[in-house]
Structures are given as C-alpha cells and as structure tokens.
C-alpha cells in the first residue's frame, strides 16, 4: 500500500521539499537582509490592480452616494463646512501669533527651529486581517511624495507610520500592531516612555515606567519626538488604567489611543523634516 501511494506521491514530495526550502530561504533572506526589497517592490506594484479591484465596491458605493445626494443636502454640507472653516481660520490666527512668540523664545534660548509639518491627504485602500498584524494600505505612494517612516494621523491622533512605499500605494503599520512601539511622553508630568502595541485597536501599553512614576488616569500621552521617527507633540492617547502590582518594579499602564484605528478612512501623512529636531536634543555646552 505504501509503495502504491508513494509512486503517486513522489513528485509532490520532491516539490514539497523544494518549495519548503525555497520558502525558508526567502524568510531568511527577507528577515536578515535587504536583498529582496526590490523584488518585493516589484511584486507590490503588481498587486496594485488587485487592491483597486478589491476596493471597487466600496469606492463605487461612495461615488454613487455622492452623486445622488440631493442639492439641499449638498448646500447644507457646504454651509456647515464653511462655518467650520471660519472657526478653524480664527483658531489658526491665534496659532500664528503663538508660533511667532514661540519662535522668538527659541531664538532667545538659541535652540534650533522646529520645522512646520506638511500633510498629504490619503485614503484607506485595504487592511490586513491577520490577527495581531495591524497594517493598512493607503492610496498614495512614491508618486505622490510619500516616503518610508513618515507618520500617519487621522483627525484624532497618531495612527502609525509608513513601512513600505510603492509607486501608487504604501503600506503603513499602526501603533496598535503587536510589533510596534512609539516614543511618547506624558503631557502633564513630562515623563517619557514607550507606547507599545498589543495587537488590539483599543489599547496600548506604556513600557518601563516604575510604580512610583508621576502618572494618573486621564493623563494625555503625546509623541515625544525622540528617536526622530515621529514628529513631537502629536496626541497619541489617554491613560485609562494603571495597575501597580507588588511583585513587579514596573506599573502596568494602558493607554486608549485617540486615533480611530479601526474605522478611520481618511488618513493624513505627515511629511516632517526631523533633522532640525534631532540636533536640538544634542548637548551643546
């Protein structure tokens, strides 16, 4: 019986060994080196039409909805947006004077200037559904000026950063990804920490904060800008839970992210020049 099976199965067995070894070689190469990056980029670009097709139903319904919206509703929207624009403009005026003041103070302190951030607006194209891997695809790529390591935000807070860029789309990794960590500081006390993803969209964990750290539930957590990957002072989340257990030197602190990680469709990419900021933190005595 075994030999009869084997005559059928010897070719598959050979293929199994061949392709398994090939996969292992690929895993090894892709993890340890950048040798496969160009191949990956090519294949990623080839997958773009597939992503477009997958997105077609939702973009079609969106377009149809926009098309059939009544005139009344459109003008209503228009009015509301115009009002909102007025308010934002007024706030911007205030911000401008604050910025000038800040600039003057910085000149007095002889510290370098912060660069104003620019934004690229983009839309969500696809998401991964592998548990724990919180990655998304957005519809702007190298063609639109997107570069790796740029941060992404929605209108509530920091979402994550760009991990790979293709011609017309880009991959981003969310702050809730189990392998993601973002340098943060607690706004009230200025304590620095790292917010690590847990693979859940509603919770991050603050790492390495001792049990006696000056932290309270409700404290706001913002990006610290250390490490140079994320621009400083963007809101990340709010502390929801602090557990201090006697057998651990560190407190178990949970942060609820502001960004709507699981529902946001409109995503802003921050194109920040971070060099100015990293030189600022160097010792200059």
């Amino acid at each position, binding site marked *: 019986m075994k030999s009869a*099976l084997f005559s*059928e*199965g010897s*070719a*598959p*067995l050979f*293929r*199994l060994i061949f*392709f*398994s070894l*090939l*996969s*292992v*070689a*690929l*895993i*090894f*190469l*892709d*993890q340890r080196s950048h040798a*496969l990056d160009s*191949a*990956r980029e090519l*294949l*990623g670009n080839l*997958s773009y039409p*597939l*992503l477009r*097709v*997958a*997105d077609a*139903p*939702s973009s079609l319904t969106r377009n149809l909805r926009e098309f059939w919206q009544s005139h009344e509703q459109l003008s209503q929207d228009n009015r509301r947006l115009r009002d909102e624009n007025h308010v934002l403009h007024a706030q911007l005026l205030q911000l401008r004077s604050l910025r000038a003041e800040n600039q003057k103070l910085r000149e007095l302190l002889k510290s370098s200037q912060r660069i104003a951030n620019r934004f690229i607006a983009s839309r*969500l*194209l*696809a*998401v*991964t*559904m*592998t*548990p*724990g*891997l919180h*990655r998304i695809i957005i519809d702007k790529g190298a063609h639109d000026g997107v570069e790796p390591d740029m941060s992404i935000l929605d209108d509530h807070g920091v979402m994550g950063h760009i*991990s*790979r860029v293709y011609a017309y789309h880009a*991959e981003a990794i969310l702050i809730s990804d*189990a*392998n993601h960590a973002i340098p943060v500081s607690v706004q009230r006390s200025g304590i620095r920490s790292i917010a690590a993803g847990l*693979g859940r*969209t509603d919770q991050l964990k603050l790492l390495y904060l001792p049990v006696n750290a000056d932290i309270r539930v409700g404290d706001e957590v913002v990006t610290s800008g250390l490490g140079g990957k994320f621009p400083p002072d963007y809101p990340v989340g709010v502390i929801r839970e602090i557990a201090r257990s006697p057998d651990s030197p560190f407190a178990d602190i949970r942060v609820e992210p502001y960004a709507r990680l*699981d*529902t946001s469709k409109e995503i802003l990419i921050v194109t920040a020049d971070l060099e100015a900021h990293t030189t600022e933190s160097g010792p200059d005595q």
Partner: protein
Amino acid sequence: MTRWKYALTLFLSLTAALTLAVVPVPVWLHDYAPDWAVMTVVWWNLHRPNKASVGVGWLTGLALDILRFTTLGLHAFATTATSYFAVRINLQFRMFAVVQKILIVLLLLAIYRIILFWISGLAGNAVSSPAHWKPLLADLLVWPWLNALMHEILRRIEAKPATEN
C-alpha cells in the same frame, strides 16, 4: 487548448480568491475572515491535483505574503505544506462521504493555521492563539459554497469540447 483553459480558470479563480482576501471588511469581522485563497488552492489540489499541485500552493502563499505584508516565504511555507497534504490524500478524498470531506478540508486548513502560527512565531510575529483559530469557523461556512461553485465552473469547462476558436 484545454490545457490553456485550465490554466486560465486556475489563474482567474486564484486571483478572485486573493482579491477577496484583501477586500476591506467591517472590523468585527476581521478575526473571522475566511482563508479564501488557501481554500481555493486546496480545492484544486484535492480535485485536480494534476493541474494544480504544490507549486501553485507556493505561489499563492507568496502572493498572500505580498498582500498581507508578512515576511516573504511565511505564508508560502504554510501553503506549500498544506498543498502537499491535499495532493497526497486526493485519491482517498474522492471516496469519502460529504461530512468526511468537510472534516478533511477543515483539518487541512487547521494544518495551514498551525504551520502559519508556528512559523510566524519563529519569524518574530507571534500572535495570541485564540484569534488564530476563529477563521476556521468562517471557512466551515464558506467551503460548501466555494466547493459547489468550483464544481459548477469545472463542469462547464470540461463538458464542452474545445470547439470554439
């Protein structure tokens, strides 16, 4: 001619499955997203092993790696092994009753999930385990329909002799 037809059908069915694998779905469904692509490959491996064998499984896995941003070779390794087991039992599979067939398919998909879980742990993408098994429920619901659809498509292709063009 028929060879060409098979290749086209295989390509189109896999492309459709891969597209379904990246269609954005509501968040509460994320953990239950069925393994469209793996199920389609397994279907081919079980029913037409001489048309789609281990190599096709590997290619599908590679496509999944690209689409899901995992380390290249991660899904490919898992689908290769799954395809191999599917090809190996295809002769016995034909003899089974419907319920047994479904159980075998579930077993194959569970093997796929186990290998994926194990190898992503090795590659440093470890994930909590209960979330990893939920897609099997969705697979169980989807498989009968996918099975019927694929049989219907193949019946049409194989019924007609290659007369046109």
